[in-house]
């Protein structure tokens, strides 16, 4: 993963060294107990056609905590992430088996409306994908399609302030979001997500297309947002997982005798344990850089 050239103009030097070069923190974030979990996942498998891409995943996601999902490419962590807001529904031939309960409601129950699900469980993607509309309209999009009745101007300002973007964009709300730098675009996408006032934010490698400075800003934002939102983040960047998350799930892929890869959850624990004293050798090998 090579950082893209800096896209962030007029940036004051960051107070602490940027993302990739920060020394690993010794103090990990303290995970709270998992009582009253937001998600309960049991025996989750995901199929693409006949291929079982992810097999038998069990985990619980804590309320207002950051859960990181790490692992080598092709281990199914993004696939699992996309189960939480039913984005896999949009992929033809994708099928989900097992249980995902959201506040003890079966997320894949017969009467569950995926649109309703996605308004409560937002998502930020790997590559910033702002709509080719103005900054204002990007934020206003979600509330508008959701039938928001209040004052949109206020909501836009509030949301952008919340996402620490207001000062940078307040004078150009009507200009195209595509004129922003990559890091600003990604923060706009986060802002767009919280404008719908979800409970959970899913992030699929949100920093992988960004330079270290933009990455650091997103990480700061994530920490701030975790006070109000439950965040699940898929990342390739182990330092990022160590820095921001309370709990970490480590995935890897088994190759069966037919040569097919099946993603598996190997270990799920408090981040401090995963990075200091993992119980599985594969986790240890991965975080110490021996494979993956």
């Amino acid at each position, binding site marked *: 993963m090579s950082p893209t050239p800096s896209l962030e103009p007029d940036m004051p030097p960051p107070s602490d060294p940027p993302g990739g070069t920060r020394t690993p923190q010794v103090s990990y974030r303290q995970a709270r107990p998992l009582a009253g979990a937001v998600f309960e996942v049991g025996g989750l498998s995901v199929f693409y056609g006949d291929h079982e891409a992810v097999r038998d995943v069990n985990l619980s996601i804590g309320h207002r905590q950051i859960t990181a999902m790490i692992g080598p490419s092709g281990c199914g962590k993004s696939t699992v992430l996309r189960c939480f807001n039913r984005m896999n529904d949009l992929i033809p031939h994708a099928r989900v088996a097992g249980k995902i309960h959201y506040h003890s409601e079966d997320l894949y129950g017969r009467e569950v409306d995926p649109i309703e699900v996605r308004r409560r469980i937002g998502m930020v993607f790997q590559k910033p*994908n702002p709509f*080719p509309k103005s900054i204002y309209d990007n934020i206003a*999009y979600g509330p508008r399609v959701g039938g928001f009745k209040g004052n949109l101007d206020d909501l836009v300002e509030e949301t952008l302030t919340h996402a620490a973007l207001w000062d940078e964009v307040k004078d150009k709300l009507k200009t195209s979001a595509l004129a922003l730098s990559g890091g600003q675009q990604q923060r706009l996408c986060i802002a767009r997500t919280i404008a719908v006032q979800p409970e959970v934010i899913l992030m699929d490698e949100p920093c992988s297309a960004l330079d270290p400075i933009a990455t650091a800003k997103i990480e700061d934002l994530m920490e701030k947002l975790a006070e109000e939102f439950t965040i699940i983040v898929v990342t390739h960047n182990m330092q990022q997982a160590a820095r921001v998350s309370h709990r970490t799930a480590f995935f890897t892929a088994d190759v069966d005798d037919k040569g097919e890869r099946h993603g598996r959850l190997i270990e799920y624990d408090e981040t401090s344990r995963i990075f200091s004293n993992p119980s599985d050798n594969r986790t240890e090998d991965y975080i110490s850089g021996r494979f993956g």
Partner: protein
Amino acid sequence: MSVPQQRPRSASGSPGFLKRSQPRYGEKVIKVLLVAAALVSVLTTVGIVIALVPPTSDFFGEVGLGEFLTGTEWSALFNPPEFGVLPLVGATLLITLIALVVAVPLGLGAAIYLSEYASSRTRTVFKPVLEVLAGIPTVVYGFFALKAITPFLRDNWWFDQPPQIFNALSAGFVMGIMIIPTVASLSEDAMAAVPHALRDGAFALGSSRMQVSTRVVFPAALSGIVAAVVLGISRAIGETMIVAIAAGLRPQLSWNPLEGMQTMTAFIAAAGIGDVPVGSTGYKTIFAVGSLLFVMTLVMNLISIRLVRKYREVYE
């Protein structure tokens, strides 16, 4: 099996060893042929415009521009001749409008269905079938209008006055059917080209499929969609056979689609295959009407380019 041995090229040599070792005439020939191919269409267009100019200017030497553009009577080939082009322009506009009322909703609807709703299997079957519609000769559409649509309308008319045998409504309706594939196919291409990441973003914010289609995909594909509609309008304005057969050849200024009327193209066709003496005023009339048609299409294209620049959402 032995690997064929290739002797390494010598890295050094006499001065100028990097010069081309063989002349490549083929490259030049190909380039000339390709330029010629590109020029043919440009030169043809220029040639048509040039050919239109002298008879048109001759015509306006004999008939005033004001009389031509504002007159409401058209009987160019009869005695006494009247050269008011408005009846022809009006008929062209009315029939084109009817065609658009049919083609734009149906064409865009089909495009949105194919691009956003249909499974890939449905799409691969549906789209070629749709495009076959575009391959039906327009004379067939013309007779379909005259022999199927018009009788149907006349037999099942709910209001007072049934349409005449030749009428603008049938012609416009069938013309609309004719341009649906153009509008649908090109619009679908434009919508399919919108990046999937935008749809994902919209779905993740809790949009329904219709909201994704109309609020994200449609605006992002607008320039392509407008281009599709403009191409459809151009085909409608220039369409001759359907209107000549189904709308009749009687020039009259009327906005009643139930009446017969003659469009600009129908006049050109009728006069062109008639026995108008070369060089007569009637003959020059053909070119004058042709020039006006050309100008109208051109202006429409310019306007649509402006509109697209103003409203499209550039996604890359």
